[in-house]
């Protein structure tokens, strides 16, 4: 049985496990851009993202026989890719950090001349990998909390907590929550941010 481009993801995966040499390639072609975007935004580094996606899709290629249809194929692929990204981050063990405010003032509008996208990307890069992955899935790519939880392999409450905490930190870094430090408003500051505290289990 040979699959064609009109087949569903599930049919393509079945065809692959049944021996169709082209089915997995079609599945990859169908989803690679989205998987790439998730990997790139999670890792923030092109080469790392390329390695992670390649590792993940090779792993998926070989383990396709164990896909039991408990989730959508695309969820399964995203899960493998995101896990590859997080594994890579943990191996890298290097996370730039920023300072947290000593006091809080009223919110301030961001500086008008800043490059918003660049600032957001820079700020995202300074979050913990877990918070960043949750925000990439939920706020950037629009996944629901439930599907993001499935992709990340954590409870929905954990995803909510990671998103809430990540957004709060981004709000500080992007100047939406301004501190008493006059140099930090509207820009991503440098320095050290306390590592994540609490359980984030949010269950």
């Amino acid at each position, binding site marked *: 049985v040979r699959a064609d481009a009109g087949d569903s993801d599930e049919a393509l995966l079945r065809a692959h496990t049944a021996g169709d040499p082209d089915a997995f390639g079609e599945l990859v072609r169908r989803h690679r851009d989205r998987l790439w975007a998730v990997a790139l935004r999670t890792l923030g580094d092109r080469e790392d993202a390329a390695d992670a996606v*390649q590792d*993940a899709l090779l792993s998926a290629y070989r383990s396709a026989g164990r896909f039991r249809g408990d989730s959508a194929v695309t969820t399964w692929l995203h899960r493998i890719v995101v896990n590859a990204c997080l594994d890579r981050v943990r191996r890298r063990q290097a996370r730039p950090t920023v300072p947290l405010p000593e006091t809080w003032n009223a919110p301030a509008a961001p500086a008008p001349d800043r490059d918003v996208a660049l600032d957001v990307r820079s700020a995202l890069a300074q979050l913990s990998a877990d918070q960043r992955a949750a925000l990439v899935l939920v706020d950037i790519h629009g996944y629901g909390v439930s599907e993001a939880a499935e992709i990340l392999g954590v409870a929905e409450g954990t995803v909510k907590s990671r998103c*809430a905490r990540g957004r709060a930190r981004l709000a500080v870094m992007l100047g939406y929550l301004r501190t008493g430090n006059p140099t930090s408003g509207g820009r991503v500051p440098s320095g050290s941010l306390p590592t994540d505290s609490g359980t984030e289990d949010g269950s």
Partner: protein
Amino acid sequence: VTFGVDLDRLADYTAGLLDGTPQADEVAELIATRSDWAHAYAALADAERAVRVDLAGLGSQQIAMPPDVVARLDAALDEARARPQLTVISGEGAGRRTPGSAARARRRRQAWVAAAAAGVLALGGFGVTVLADMFSGRADETAATSGGPAVAQRGADALGGREPAAQPEAADSGPPRFTTSGMNYWPTDIASESFLSAPPAGGMAPGPSPSFSTGRKDVDEAQVPPPLRGLAADPGAMDACLRQVAAGYGGRPSVVDLARFQNEPALIIVLVDPAGRPVRVVVSGPACGQPGSGADVRFTTPVS
């Protein structure tokens, strides 16, 4: 935290994640009594909304996989197609190609399917005599070293086709086989029904496989977690480790994957009964076999 407002707590509170807990009352009290908390709380909702808008803006920018990454990925998948997985069959299937789907299904339940075509070694004591070659990139050139019957086989192309085939001479009574799958295992993976019926190198979490050479500079380094290298390079230490594991749970170590478990370096050890049937999986840490550490067990589960 050392600053005035615990941002994480406040974020959880604002998101409703503390509802119904004592922590919610504590945060409410802080907001009611401290100006810094009150200001932060008042500002956070609007700030969060602004952040969501920014993030959604990023998401609206379409990102396509660059052509060079596409080409590289296609090449890797082509190579995977051209190099089918090797299968190491324990038990009755050893040394034979499985003849039909029913028999194959039965045997798959009894087999550790090791896709590490280039990374299978047979070692003495429990078989432990040499591991160092695994780390010098010469594992695919290393045959059995202590009279063990398993062999290292270069590539899988000769087997032809996509159907996994039994690796010749893999026997149940021999020494353990060592693999470096690059995997990061989790308890649910190891406890799953499919754990022993699928290739570790293609398995439960992504990781590079020693059966592929895709030109990536980090593959060798990633395959074996550094904390395991000392243990793996010392046959006596590895032998002591496996003896501790066997003494604790019975059975004979059949396959040892030098990999990771829940992101920590670990040995994934499959114990088999005298008939060669897998009976238990034991996950041991790098201190396995060291005086006072026993088997340094991190996780274990019987194989049903």
